[in-house]
């Protein structure tokens, strides 16, 4: 009985969201508003249990690391964002979080640039490796805006556009398949778990 009620609630809300395919309507607006509220409400206890308790409460009250009171006080300055005269205090917790950006410079340069470049600079032993190399270089040339895309240079960057279009097409295809997979899941729920029409 309890499972039937649970399935009914889930099915009703699923249909409320699907009703948007017809047009924007009160059922969809209700479900949308509920989703926003429930999602935020879901995050609060999770964050409290997984972040606040182990990193704020336990060190201060159980481990007696009273130094942690200072970052906790800095963190609580976030609420001054909503005041008119003291909103500048909210900059302090943000600046401490932004300090980590120093780590980002060598890390992004290493993982996103150097490693990728090393992987692209292989001996051109096969057609595929050659194509990957040509594709990478022509796309990078396409994003070099200091030179007008005209003449031979324009033709080279055009090759880059073709490579990018194929890449975007592949990403598009994957995204469509992921969404259709979700859609199949919802249809299976409605026809199977809720209505019992399919096993």
């Amino acid at each position: 009985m309890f499972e039937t009620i649970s399935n009914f609630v889930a099915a009703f809300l699923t249909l409320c969201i699907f009703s948007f395919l017809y047009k924007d309507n009160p059922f969809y607006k209700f479900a949308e508003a509920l989703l926003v509220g429930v999602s935020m409400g879901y995050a609060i206890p999770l964050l409290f249990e997984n972040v606040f308790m182990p990193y704020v409460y336990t060190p201060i009250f159980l481990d007696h690391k009273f130094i942690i009171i200072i970052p906790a006080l800095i963190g609580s300055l976030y609420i001054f964002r909503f005041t008119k005269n003291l909103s500048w205090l909210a900059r302090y917790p943000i600046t401490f979080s932004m300090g980590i950006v120093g780590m980002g410079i060598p890390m992004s340069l290493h993982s996103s640039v150097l490693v990728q470049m090393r992987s692209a600079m292989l001996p051109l032993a096969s057609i595929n490796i050659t194509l990957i190399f040509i594709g990478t270089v022509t796309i990078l040339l396409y994003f070099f805006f200091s030179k007008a895309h005209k003449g031979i240079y324009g033709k080279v960057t055009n090759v880059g556009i073709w490579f990018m279009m194929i890449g975007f097409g592949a990403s598009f295809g994957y995204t469509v398949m992921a969404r259709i997979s979700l859609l199949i899941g919802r249809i299976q729920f409605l026809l199977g778990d809720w209505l019992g029409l399919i096993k």
Partner: protein
Amino acid sequence: MKRQIPLMIVVILGSMFVVHTFVPHKISADFFDWFQDWIKAISPFAILLGVISLSMVNGTKIKRKAPNWQYSVVTLIGLAFTAIAGFVWGTQTGTPYMWLFKNVQMPMGATMFSLLAFYIASAAYKAFRARSTEATVLLIAAVIVMLGQVSLGAMISKWIPITSKWILNVPNLAAKRAIMIGVGLGMTATSLKILLGIERTYLGGGK
């Protein structure tokens, strides 16, 4: 001073972490661990911004009886009820909190994303109508990749799964690699701008 001191904190901390990456001395490693504890203690308070902001926006709508204010009531009830359920009955399996996740949030979230399947299909139709060579190339690649993922593709031709795999492993890899290099350079440039105090938007407006 209200802007300069936060800016100096970012510049000093950022520079110290750049040095730490290249000179991982014990002192700097200990400082980094200590700083991470501080960041973890600061971070949970950020949710206050979200909760207060959402409550204020919806509270103002209700107070002013703005159009569709009734849905703001639904949002606030959903927020309060789910949070209270989590604090009162816990977050374990079998609690009202997890019931709300399983039967309210998860189905609606999945359905919301599945709606995109329909809109993506309409976007594909519009792209095809554009009738440019590039748009056609994009669509052909997408169709081959999609057919390559399902058994229907192999039933049509044995070449479809092979071509799909080739698209993913060769031109797609080249595109992703070049974009990744661009993103990496962009991230590095933005981080440097923050570190040198050129980029200050994170400080917000006002004095």
